[in-house]
């Protein structure tokens, strides 16, 4: 087929189909040089890559890792690697540019093969090569590749300008503003594509064609050994990393036996952690969305991962050098304990790095060995040891609340167990949320009860890395629930929901549990609605949104009461309130308060009410809004919003 466009061909420069120029016959000496260069390049490549692979394999096995369900892995691979979905969705323009570069690499697979084959005198795709079997294959393919090459050239140029002229802060590393290696690699990619495209415009067999051929080859053979020395290692590793994810979001692995205390030294690094550390592309998407990094803390998720990589490069995962503490030269304890475990980093990562288990792992290493000496942390752990709740309050306070609200006690016969949690049981605001939710349940005639005694689910201990306290609480709670025949739980706190449903699995089989927003959404048709014009801004809690994928249910409750408005960062991009990761119980923050930043963002929507779905978010915003002055919007949990619409107590509830 001949393209009828204004191509060099139709302009009469060439006769024949659109193809890159044939470089001509290669001399024997050229073939030897080519072979030698290939061997050298491959050798240099393996010299470094082999070390990386060795370090990954020498790391210890991940406890609790299962390949199944494979279906999800295959889907993630297709969607995130091949379709570059996350890369594009989260940073559209640069993402698309990267996608083109990636796709052109894929598209060029045969081109490259053919290119080298040509050098050895085996013209694969030439008319008397593969095209013998598939007519016009070469014509199509080279043109197809050329289109991609154009896209790639434009994209790489754009990305180069972005990195070196625009210089977004997220791309830089602490201490190195510009990355020379990125420049070199960009240059090489550009060269590869440019030499390919240029070869369409020179005559077959000409000196120009030969020179272009060699330029292309040299670009390739210089590129190859550079890959394992730079972040471009992700070319090889990231598809594997994405395929070998832990299985669910922010999944904290179990400890493996008596000697495992978390990530203490290099010997504790697992294969997945090492693989992920070497996959990091330094794109900085994690840091860009990190609430700590955005409010002046020293925590920088990218640097945490690169810190692990630096450790592996210097000390490795085995041997006496690997006895150096992980929280030492390359990672700081202070940074590790500034994390709210919001998961924005992990969510954003386009190469499948799971930051939260790594940070929690580092915390475990510090806490389980007593290396973390923090006054507030110690106070929290002692309170959980002594009083079995994170606030250190007496259980009689909770009893008083139950009595005052006349809450039915769970006796095994009711359908649901309403879990109060530490906030619902002791915090005045949490109690209001419980009271409102109870009103709704009473209206619906739901059969429920509250446990006579509750111990904290252990969420703060879990996220801070205290496995001793967590295990004690989880086991004790599981036993109590089994004894009392608890089958289904509703909780007003996303942290309780997550910890009970996922983290308790390490010690037993937890009952089913759902968040009250899921319950409310399910019963929306049975509840009365009094919709007003009021603007209500909804804040997605980290542990409900990113952790549990519950975004629409709370919104349905809000939409039934007023006009839902979204904050600038919402849904999967919701910005943390600052309480997670046990941080609500630790002392004052450095830099700006995360809660103030988010509160301002919510106030900026112009809403007169802020809807929350987590008692911790609620308590953080309560203080932050109070400091904004008297005209600040009111703060309500969705349970309160739902309860507001119920008829007054003397009216008869509908059946």
């Amino acid at each position, binding site marked *: 087929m001949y393209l009828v466009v204004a191509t060099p061909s139709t302009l009469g420069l060439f006769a024949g189909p659109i193809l890159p120029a044939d470089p001509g016959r290669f001399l024997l000496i050229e073939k030897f040089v080519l072979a030698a260069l290939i061997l050298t390049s491959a050798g240099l490549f393996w010299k470094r890559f082999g070390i990386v692979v060795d370090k990954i394999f020498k790391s210890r096995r991940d406890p609790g890792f299962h390949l199944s369900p494979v279906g999800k892995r295959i889907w993630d691979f297709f969607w995130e690697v091949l379709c570059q979905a996350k890369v594009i969705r989260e940073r559209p323009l640069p993402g698309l540019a990267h996608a083109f570069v990636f796709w052109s690499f894929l598209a060029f697979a045969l081109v490259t093969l053919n290119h080298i084959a040509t050098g050895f005198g085996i013209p694969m795709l030439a008319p008397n090569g593969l095209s013998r079997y598939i007519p016009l294959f070469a014509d199509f393919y080279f043109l197809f590749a050329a289109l991609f090459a154009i896209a790639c050239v434009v994209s790489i140029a754009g990305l180069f300008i972005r990195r070196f002229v625009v210089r977004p802060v997220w791309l830089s590393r602490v201490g190195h503003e510009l990355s020379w290696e990125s420049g070199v690699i960009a240059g090489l990619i550009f060269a590869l594509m440019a030499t390919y495209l240029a070869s369409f415009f020179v005559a077959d067999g000409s000196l120009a064609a030969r020179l272009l051929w060699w330029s292309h080859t040299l670009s390739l053979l210089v590129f190859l050994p550079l890959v394992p020395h730079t972040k471009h290692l992700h070319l090889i590793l990231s598809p594997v990393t994405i395929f070998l994810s832990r299985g669910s979001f922010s999944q904290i692995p179990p400890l493996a036996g008596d000697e495992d205390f978390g990530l203490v030294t290099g010997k504790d690094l697992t294969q997945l952690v090492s693989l992920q550390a070497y996959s990091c592309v330094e794109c900085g998407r994690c840091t860009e969305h990190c609430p700590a990094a955005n409010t002046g803390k020293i925590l920088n998720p990218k640097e945490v991962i690169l810190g692990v990589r630096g450790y592996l490069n210097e000390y490795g995962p085995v041997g006496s050098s690997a006895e150096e503490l992980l929280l030492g030269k390359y990672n700081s304890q202070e940074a590790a304990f500034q994390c709210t475990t919001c998961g924005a980093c992990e969510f954003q990562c386009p190469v499948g790095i799971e930051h939260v288990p790594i940070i929690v792992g580092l915390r475990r290493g510090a806490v389980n060995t*007593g290396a973390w000496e923090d006054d507030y942390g110690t106070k929290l752990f002692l309170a959980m040891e*002594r009083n079995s709740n994170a606030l250190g309050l007496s259980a009689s306070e909770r009893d008083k609340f139950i009595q005052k609200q006349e809450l039915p006690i769970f006796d095994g016969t009711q359908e649901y167990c309403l879990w109060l949690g530490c906030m619902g049981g002791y915090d005045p605001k949490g109690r209001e949320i419980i009271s409102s939710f109870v009103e709704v349940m009473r209206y619906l005639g739901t059969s429920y009860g509250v446990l006579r005694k509750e111990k904290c689910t252990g969420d703060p201990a879990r996220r801070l890395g*205290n496995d001793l306290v967590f295990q004690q609480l989880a086991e004790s709670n599981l036993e109590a629930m089994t004894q009392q025949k608890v089958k289904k739980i509703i909780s007003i706190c996303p942290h309780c929901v997550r910890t009970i449903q996922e983290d308790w699995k390490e010690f037993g089989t937890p009952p089913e549990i759902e968040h009250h927003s899921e319950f409310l959404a399910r019963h929306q048709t049975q509840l009365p609605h009094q919709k007003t014009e009021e603007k209500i801004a909804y804040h997605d809690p980290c542990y409900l949104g990113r952790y549990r994928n519950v975004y629409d249910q709370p919104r349905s409750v809000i939409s039934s009461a007023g006009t839902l408005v979204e904050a600038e960062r919402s849904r999967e991009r919701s910005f943390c309130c600052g309480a997670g990761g046990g941080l609500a119980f630790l002392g004052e923050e450095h830099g700006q308060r995360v809660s103030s930043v988010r509160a301002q963002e919510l106030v900026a929507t112009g809403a007169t009410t802020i809807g929350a779905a987590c008692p911790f978010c609620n308590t953080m915003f309560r203080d932050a809004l109070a400091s904004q002055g008297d005209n600040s919007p009111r703060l309500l949990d969705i349970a309160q919003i739902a309860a507001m619409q119920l008829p007054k107590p003397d009216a008869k509830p509908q059946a």
Partner: protein
Amino acid sequence: MKIIVAIKQVPERDARIRIDAQGKWIDLQDVEFTMNESDAYALEEALQLKEAHGGEVIVLSAGPERVGRTIREALAKGADRAIHIESADETALSDFDALGIARLLAAAVKDEQADLILTGLQSDDLGLGQTGVIMAELLGLPHATLILKIEKTDTGIKVLRELEDGWFQHLALPTPAVLTIQSGNSKLRYATLMGIKKAKTKEVRIVSVADLQASNPDLAPRPVVVLEKIILPHKQRTTQILGGTPGEAAAALVEKLQFEVRAI
């Protein structure tokens, strides 16, 4: 330094208070136990001294089998070994008054030749605050109470003692000595997973009360002071709202503070 820390396992502060059938103690069903608070500070002080000067920290406790859990907690926090004076059941020690218990404890550690014996200032349950002082007298050792800080000196130890009304004083005493430790002086450490695992390998020497008594007839319980009965006081902790004009309410409050709370 060889330091013995006497620790008591007490019902946790939260425990539901119901008087048992005999009327002499609380019903222990569903009651959870924990380490006595000022004993935890005594342990912390001992561990800090060991970290600074080397030596050994030995935990000493008397009570039924359940006391083992608190002993292990102390070992997990860093003590080296323990002596458990085990009583056969919940009631076996109820005939021992403070002097009787102190005699048991003193008998168990007499041969240890410790440099220091530390106890908490008082127990959260009985609150007598005497065991340490009595042990000092029985063992013929000097003692000091309400201690906040201990420093080792060439001639023995220098301690910081709390006095009333925000006053303090230093004391110098020779070792061996007995000290009772006040709460709140140091930052307690939390029990770590690593500590608990290590604790499994540490020695807990169990000595039964009966055995101690067999070798020492002095230790038979002959209580000097007898707990006859316990009663729940009428006033439970409820909020009293003081009404009237500001002046009236203020006067009522002052009266409460003076005579009921005894703070003015």
